[in-house]
């Protein structure tokens, strides 16, 4: 199992929950975390609590400095110059310099841009490419461009507030506070993260999205992220008329309210409203009569809707979609096997950068040519691209899911309001502290 990127992103940040009786933050103590699953990108997301990126994007979509304190670019966006923060050290005591940061950064950027060169000199880091890189800052805010090194024991060495003490792959991760963290030592002495338990006994635990209602222990509060995972039907090579008819049959509200237990919002667009700002323009209501008219034009046999075998939520969504489709005479068989006509997908929204996210998903569904026409400086092109993707029905958005964590009463975040406003994606562990008198 691998922890999804968003989860580690969540754990890497902190939202302060206002609690009665919570006064000033206290240092010390160990935070126990239980995570039900490990998803793709887990290791990279884990780096976010151990490693840091050069910049990050706040809730308003603004670029904020982290390891880079300043940056410049030429008019063509082909050459970027970053000034790294001084007095930053890796967990093993080595100082952060352009030379030490360059290898990890170069590997990540080459995956994104192909031929990229990096010049390192002191704290100055120059990234250069033959292609324009107007979105480089947004890319550098993503977890996969974090700065890290590997020890001789192949342990991850970053510059974040926590350092890795022990790592049992897919079972347990133990972190300890990095006393020399450039932004100040975290409150917690250590963090013990257990994977795949799902018992909900930790100080902090995730609550998976699903139709089952979770009875939380007394005093446990929940935290919901902004909608950040798109659940949609990928149409593949299915008949466009069928996809249009199918989209008209689906009643999304029960999926969001019942199957997702209100941990999601009805999705009419690819990007959630809080990211794109225009999702409301795609709103529609089910029209079974119209769907039947469309189905009268095509003669198709039974189809299948695939979902991951271990994902109960997507399974219930698939069954609901099949039920809705049956009202229009469309026969769809939910299946967990690989060879399905249609596929239910979960698409994580990695950042608040609309252009970046839309481009990713366009490429995912094979609309690469249209994605290339996207101009981030022209917001209308974003809408036009998403409109065209939805009109094709190659992707049928269903719901945008929020992530939920349960937080025990002894855990507090500092400062609560600031953290919530600064990063709607995640909880930041460095802002957490425990009331050791309250007991585990």
């Amino acid at each position: 199992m691998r922890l999804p990127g968003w989860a580690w992103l969540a754990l890497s940040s902190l939202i302060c929950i206002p609690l009665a009786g919570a006064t000033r933050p206290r240092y010390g103590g160990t935070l126990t975390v239980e995570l039900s699953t490990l998803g793709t990108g887990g290791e990279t997301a884990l780096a976010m609590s151990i490693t840091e990126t050069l910049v990050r994007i706040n809730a308003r979509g603004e670029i904020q400095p982290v390891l880079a304190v300043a940056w410049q670019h030429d008019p063509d966006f082909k050459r970027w110059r970053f000034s790294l923060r001084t007095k930053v050290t890796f967990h093993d005591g080595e100082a952060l310099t352009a030379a030490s940061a360059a290898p990890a950064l170069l590997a990540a950027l080459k995956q994104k841009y192909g031929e990229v060169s990096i010049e390192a000199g002191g704290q100055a880091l120059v990234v250069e490419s033959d292609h324009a890189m107007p979105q480089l800052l947004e890319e550098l805010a993503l977890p996969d461009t974090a700065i890290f090194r590997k020890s001789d024991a192949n342990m991850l060495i970053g510059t974040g507030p926590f350092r890795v003490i022990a790592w049992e792959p897919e079972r347990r991760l133990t972190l300890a506070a990095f006393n020399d963290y450039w932004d100040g030592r975290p409150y917690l002495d250590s963090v013990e993260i257990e994977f795949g338990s799902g018992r909900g006994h930790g100080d902090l635990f995730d609550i998976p999205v699903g139709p089952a209602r979770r009875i939380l222990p007394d005093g446990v509060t929940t935290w919901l992220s902004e909608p950040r995972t798109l659940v949609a039907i990928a149409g593949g090579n299915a008949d466009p008329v069928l996809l249009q008819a199918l989209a008209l049959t689906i009643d999304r509200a029960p999926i969001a309210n019942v199957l997702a237990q209100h941990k999601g919002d009805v999705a009419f667009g690819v990007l959630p409203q809080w990211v794109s700002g225009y999702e409301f323009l795609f709103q529609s209501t089910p029209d079974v009569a119209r769907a039947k008219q469309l189905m009268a034009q095509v003669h198709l046999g039974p189809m299948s809707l695939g979902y991951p075998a271990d994902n109960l939520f997507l399974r219930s969504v698939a069954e609901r979609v099949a039920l809705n489709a049956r009202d229009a005479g469309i026969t769809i068989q939910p299946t967990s096997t690989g060879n399905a006509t249609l596929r239910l997908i979960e698409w994580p929204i990695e950042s608040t950068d609309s252009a970046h996210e839309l481009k990713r998903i366009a490429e995912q569904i094979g609309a690469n040519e249209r994605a290339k026409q996207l101009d981030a400086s022209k917001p209308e092109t974003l809408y036009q691209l998403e409109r065209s993707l939805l009109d094709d029905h190659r992707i049928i958005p269903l719901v945008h899911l929020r992530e939920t964590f349960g937080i025990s009463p002894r855990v507090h975040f500092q400062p609560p309001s600031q953290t919530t406003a600064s990063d709607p994606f995640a909880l930041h562990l460095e802002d957490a502290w425990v009331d050791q008198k309250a007991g585990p």
Partner: protein
Amino acid sequence: MSFRTKIFLSITATVVLSVWVVAAVVSTLVTQSFQRRDDQRTATAVGQLQREIGRRGAEVARRVEAVADSDAVQRLAVNLSETSQYFTAAQTLAQEQSLDFLQLVGPDGAIISSAEWPARFGYKEDWLPQPFDWNTQPAFLKKEDLSDGSALGLIAVRSVKAADGMLYVAGGQRLDKAFLDSLPATDGVRLQIYRNFEPRESAGAAAALVDDVRRKSRELSRVTDAASITAIPLEGRDKQLLAILLVENSRAELLSLKRYIQETAAAVGAAGVLLGLILSFWTASRVTRPLRDLASSVREVAMGKWDTRANVSSSDEVGQLARDFNGMTQQLVEQRDRMIQAERVAAWRELARRLAHELKNPLFPLQITIENLQRARDASTKQFDDQFDEIFRESTFTLLAELAHLKTIVGRFSDFAKMPAPQLEPVNVNQMARDVIQLFEAQLRAPGQPPVETRLQLAADAGEVPADPDQLHRALRNLILNALDAMPQGGALTIRTARHDSKVVIEVSDTGEGLTPEECDRLFTPYYTTKQHGTGLGLAIVQSVVSDHKGAISVHSVPGKGTTFRIELGTANV
């Protein structure tokens, strides 16, 4: 068909028929017995099923009531404004109460939670909101829609008073193969449920029975070689046919027993046939041997051995028959001897009469002539010497003539007595006919003779026959003479020849007065004649000649029209 075969068939038929009747009766009785047993089994199975459905229905109702009384449902009843968190409640409650189906349905009929088809939340179950009190209703059969099809369920509904109306709890258990398997097993009985909302699986007697029940909606039965099947309709609350219970009684045991009976009957029948065969041979040998001996004796008698005697080997009917046969042949021999004696006497008498008659005619002139000669001699004088000489000459002439006549008569009898064996040689019958008729041409054309027209109708393919030409010539000559005698006033004489297969036919016809049937019967008897001066030997000689040539002669005569003699001669050895 031989006597032996008849006996064999009689014995075999008797044995086989008896065995068949016994086997059929036994088989019928066994079938009826099994049918009664099948009926009892069916009634038992149906009774068990109905009791089990009743028991299960009560159990289902109890469990649904437990669900309705559960905290979760009670909480839901007071908080119908937020039902989404109860989405999985039905699954949990169904699992707790071991129910296959469970739905929590709101006052408007909308499903809040469904255990059997979770995705159906929000869909309507319009049949649940009813004016009556569900809590007093027993469990009933119902078709339950599932994501992968439909199922037959035993459903109970209970209602819970909620803030905005009634909250309905509809739950039940599957009525399927597992349910049937849970019933007490009855040997040889198989229970099946055909759900009326599913396609019929296969063809066959059961399928046809299902179709009949679907049309008539009542219990029906059908018997096949393999099983007797009873189909019982199972209806839902609104009397719609939901399923058909098939109670299948295996007939394997009956078939096995009937097969045993048939095999035994066949074995007994085969033994009967074998016994019949042996008995028929034995009986036939006992019965038919004296009969065959008797038949052989009969054949010998038929061949002329009238003194043949049959063996009398038993005192039964066959022995009596043999004794009677011997008595009969003895009497026949005695009668034959007496008849031969009588015929011989009659023949001598006839011969004597004929000889007397034939000889008396010439003797009388002889006597007169001699008396005249004596009287002429006694009265002889000189003057009458010349007259005497003349009388003497005339008398001697007459005497010689009559003596010649006597000699002729004697010669004929001598000829008949001395008929020689034929010297066979190929004889052309057409040529023979022409030669014979030519002999009579001069006679027929002589003055004073009655006018007789001769006709020759000779077949070109008549060919030759092996015959003695002199004897055949004589026979034909006699027939022609006979024909001419039959036509004293003239007429037509016809000679025909023809060939039929291996025979040559010669017919001689006249147009005389004809003969009566009695005359025809006696015509070939020696010395029998219908003519004033005949010897009665002409046709007898003809018959003798034809007989010596292995041929046959017959006569056909119509009084007033004429007579036809027909000679048939074989062409073999020509």
